[in-house]
């Protein structure tokens, strides 16, 4: 029966000629975990998946599945199944033949194949559609055929390459829930790729955020959102205001950053010392409108625009040097009239802000 296995990457690199698509990836995915790779287009997500599934051999490092070194083992002999970005269903076969193809490859008799295909189609809520051609199905149904086809070979690890990107928003949300359900029902390890942070945050047990072939951070959705490891993660996962400066003093687990907009205090989990260059990141929803000369972190500027978003409004403030910061304010009727050009100041608590080292700085 189905059971997940762990996936381990040990300093895995992949170079295409001079171009390094994946650099020193170190990672352990638990058996039965729903693990996502999140990153912008071209950051190497598909490449990592192809390395795990065996279509490419890494140019450096070791890949283990269930603890076993996968070097030299082809995709047809790994306990993985890949769901392609474009699904790659077989258009000339019936739906049930698509689902049963992996069993056919294993020499399972036809009657047994039919029976198993029927079971799997039921699992993905496609019972009775087996005799159709793939072209007669809707986008969401094809999606499910691809899942059933991959599950048919009883993989320990299911690899999914942005499988929902071609679907419309409604269907995407529905399929997210279904994928999660199927994952929990089967216990198979899911390695899911997406450039959609909403998708990664809602579905995954843990997420690896990637940029330019590097894994920037690995953690739960909550941890990544609360404590991004880099300015890239802070801006890619959710929104963040980022202000650069130099640390001028520390006190306990907080530090003071000297920026072009004055001194700002924030948490200092990386233990940056005075003199270090750093970036301060703060989420828009942690910023508030200041009135009067309140003490604490303060950014003064003029209203650039006010975007109405329903339950809240986004206030974009232009600072003196042209930089923009955004504050997300509750739309609870307490907001003053803020026309573009009005001088305002926004502030945030020191514990809401995070100081991060600048990459390439010791």
């Amino acid at each position, binding site marked *: 029966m189905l059971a997940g296995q762990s996936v381990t990457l040990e300093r895995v690199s992949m170079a295409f000629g001079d171009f390094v698509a994946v650099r020193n990836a170190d990672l352990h995915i638990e058996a039965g975990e729903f693990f996502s790779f999140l990153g912008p287009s071209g950051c190497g997500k598909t490449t990592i998946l192809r390395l795990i599934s065996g279509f490419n051999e890494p140019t450096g490092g070791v890949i283990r599945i269930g603890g076993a070194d996968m070097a030299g083992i082809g*995709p*047809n*002999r790994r306990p993985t199944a890949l769901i392609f970005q*474009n699904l790659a269903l077989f258009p000339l076969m019936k739906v049930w033949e698509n689902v049963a193809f992996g069993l*056919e*490859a*294993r020499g399972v008799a036809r009657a047994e194949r039919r029976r198993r295909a029927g079971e799997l189609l039921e699992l993905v809520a496609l019972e009775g559609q087996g005799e159709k051609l793939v072209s007669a199905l809707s986008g969401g149904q094809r999606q499910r055929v691809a899942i059933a086809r991959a599950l*048919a070979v009883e993989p320990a690890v299911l690899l999914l390459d942005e499988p929902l990107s071609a679907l419309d928003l409604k269907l995407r949300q529905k399929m997210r829930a279904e994928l999660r359900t199927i994952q929990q029902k089967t216990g198979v390890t899911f390695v899911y790729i997406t450039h959609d942070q909403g998708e990664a945050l809602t579905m995954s047990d843990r997420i690896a955020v990637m940029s330019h072939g590097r894994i920037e951070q690995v953690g739960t959705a909550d941890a990544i959102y609360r404590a991004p490891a880099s300015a890239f993660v802070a801006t890619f996962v959710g929104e963040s205001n980022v202000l650069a400066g130099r640390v001028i003093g520390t006190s306990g687990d907080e530090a003071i950053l000297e920026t072009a907009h004055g001194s700002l205090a924030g948490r200092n989990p990386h233990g940056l010392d005075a003199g270090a260059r750093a970036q301060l990141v703060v989420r828009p929803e942690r910023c508030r409108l200041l009135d009067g000369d309140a003490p604490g972190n303060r950014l003064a500027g003029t209203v650039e625009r006010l975007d109405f978003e329903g339950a809240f409004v986004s206030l974009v403030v232009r600072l003196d040097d042209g930089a923009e910061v955004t504050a997300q304010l509750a739309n609870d009727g307490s907001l003053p009239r803020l026309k573009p050009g009005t001088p305002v100041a926004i502030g945030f608590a020191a514990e809401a802000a995070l100081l991060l080292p600048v990459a390439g700085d010791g």
Partner: protein
Amino acid sequence: MAELFRRLGAVAGALVLGTVILWVLFLVVLPQLFMVDMSLRPHLPVPEQGGPADVRSLANYATLFANDAHRGIFLRTIFSAALVTVLALVVCYPVAYYLAQVARGPTAALLVLGLVVPFWVNEILRTFSWFLILSRNGLLNQVLMGLGLTEAPLNMGGVGAVMVGMVYAYILFMVFPLYNAIESLDRNQIEAARDLGASWPRIHARVVVPHAKPGIAVGCIMTFMLAAGTVAVPQLLEALPGGTNARWFTQVIYSLFFDGGDWNSGAAYAFALLVSCVIFIFVMMRVFRVGIADVAK
């Protein structure tokens, strides 16, 4: 049709359409009808033509089946053409697959060039080059003797030589339809099949070949028609030492027309060959379950 008139206007549209109709009528339909008519009449001296003896019958066709030699050549030609087709398919499929799905960038371009360049030379010369390679003091014999594999030159003529020459003569007509068909297959489907554990033979049998069927059908049809209809290749290569001088059916037709002057029998034989080829096309389309529209693509 309406599209043609919309784009070209009434006058130009009518001109284009008219030209096509005239072309087909005068160069295809009428000559064929003339041939059929001729094939049904007896071969008579000129004064008796149109006379009481000039009645239509199937006598000329009957000779084809009654004459053991001619019937034998006819059947052997059809069989050989089919064999050439199968051999060409076997040789060309891996080449086309490699070009379409494996080779990348400059390698692929170079390979295609290597395939195409010889075809800038006319068919007779290309075949003659095989004659040179396979003749008694030809390249192959010299290589074999140089390697000490044989003492004296071998006679290379015979069925094998003709098959080699024919397969080579029509290789492009098989490779390119196959290449086009295989190239349009999404590589992810091949990888998906592999990921699901399929062996290479199974991937080809279940994914690549079914997708390439129309291309296979077109390639087979073209190769078969050309092989069945050629005069030059068998004539040249049967002349190699060791050759059987077995004649190709087209050579029989040729000699009926130009040596015997019996145009009526020649027309009957030619028409019989045409009908066989058309039957072959329909059989192929049936076997590969492809429609006219797929083939015309």
